[in-house]
């Protein structure tokens, strides 16, 4: 069973590596969205510092949302998904592997690049580690929840917009606690409560989202 997990993970990571351009586009999108804010709201350092956690988190969320449709689309188009669904391996297992590969190829780069962008927005150095930690805990939740939406909208006309409509309301709590963690650290109240909530959310999503996602894939490919 574990070998199936590893095989799907390896395959998806390899595919992501071969199609590096897609991954880099996601990352470039993240960077550009963050850089738009100083042009939009003005380059006043105090203002930028105040909005930095929210801007970085919203940009990370949008980057995740934009890449989500890729999660199952290719496999759906070439029939791999049907083969996986027909295989004797439990769907929850390889769904989790696929989401993990997706997060490693799109979420993790965002987490890694975020501190550099935070410096552009003049975020305090002390809050950088909290930012990275909150993103590292929060973006996997986004990937897990988004996978359910991506599975449900598989192969639909206008699926991208529909996916946004479906998952954005579910993303909001993650955004609140993620950006809230950094803000709490900046205001001196400590980020522990927010980070614990994110950790709890991740544990819950990890337990439930693959189940829902596997069910959604079955519904979509009947």
């Amino acid at each position, binding site marked *: 069973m574990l070998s199936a997990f590893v095989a799907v993970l390896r395959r998806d990571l390899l595919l992501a590596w071969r199609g590096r351009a897609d991954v880099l586009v996601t990352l470039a999108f993240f960077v550009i969205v963050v850089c738009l804010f100083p042009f939009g709201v003005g380059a006043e350092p105090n203002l930028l510092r105040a909005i930095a956690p929210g801007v970085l988190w919203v940009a990370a969320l949008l980057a995740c949302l934009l890449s989500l449709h890729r999660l199952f689309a290719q496999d759906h188009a070439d029939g791999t998904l049907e083969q996986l669904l027909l295989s004797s391996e439990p769907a929850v297992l390889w769904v989790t592997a696929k989401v993990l590969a997706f997060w490693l190829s799109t979420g993790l780069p965002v987490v890694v690049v975020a501190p550099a962008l935070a410096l552009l927005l003049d975020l305090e150095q002390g809050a950088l580690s909290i930012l990275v930690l909150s993103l590292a805990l929060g973006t996997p939740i986004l990937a897990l929840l988004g996978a359910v939406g991506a599975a449900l*909208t598989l192969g639909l006309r206008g699926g991208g917009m529909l996916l946004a409509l*479906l998952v954005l309301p*579910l993303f909001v709590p993650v955004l609140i606690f993620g950006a809230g963690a950094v803000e709490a650290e900046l205001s001196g109240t400590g980020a522990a409560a927010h980070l614990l909530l994110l950790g709890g959310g991740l544990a819950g999503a990890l337990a439930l989202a693959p189940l829902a996602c596997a069910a959604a894939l079955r519904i979509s490919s009947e």
Partner: protein
Amino acid sequence: MTTSDRGFSLFRFAAPQAFYPLAGRLAPWFAAAAAVLTVVGLWLAFFVAPTDAVQGEVYRVIFIHVPAAWMSMFIYLVMAGWSAVGLVMNTRLSFIMSQALAPTGAMFCFVALWTGALWGRPTWGAYWVWDARLTSQLLLLFLYFGFIALTRAIEDPRRADRAGALIAIVGAVNVPVIYFSVKWWNTLHQGASVSLTKAPSMASTMLAGMLVMAFAAWAYTLAVVLWRVRPMILERERHTEWVGAVLAQEAAAEGGRG
């Protein structure tokens, strides 16, 4: 129809064929009840209930706002409940019910937000604040939109039913968040107006007006949903014999009248 052979059973009405005439018979009664209760409720609200000691006349919006907010949350839970029943028991009617409920739930959600804004302007000085209760209610509206958009976007009814059911169940996480938001976050929105465990903190006529309006909203929802379910059943079952018979009957009745 095997269940009816063994005597009367409510489960008989899980069959669309049996539910269709039942819905047609019940809907007018609920509609009439909704009309009567609305008239009584509005009369209590505007003529009997006293002016609020703190808020003056503005408070009277609660007679619409609170029942609408209750209904918007309750309908989502019922929708998720029907969805779960549909997924577990594979009953077609459950999915039709949850899809028929969604537009009414979205409407009550919108009414709650809109009346809240009209109340907020004179009371808080702003139409909208980013308060936990308000934002979670706004998210509920988006969840309704997502559900409606998803079920309408999928052409295959079987897939639409199941996909909608899944997202309804996932989205139900939000409802307790709205309900407890005034407790979890100590925010601008006031606490619960009515509690089952405490003595009512408002005049009894106010409470009566609000409860009558809540029952009116219930009756209205039942009437509208039953009416909305009927054409949905006909559309789904259009290839069956009984639908042909029903349509022929209705056409004959139409012709006889005209």
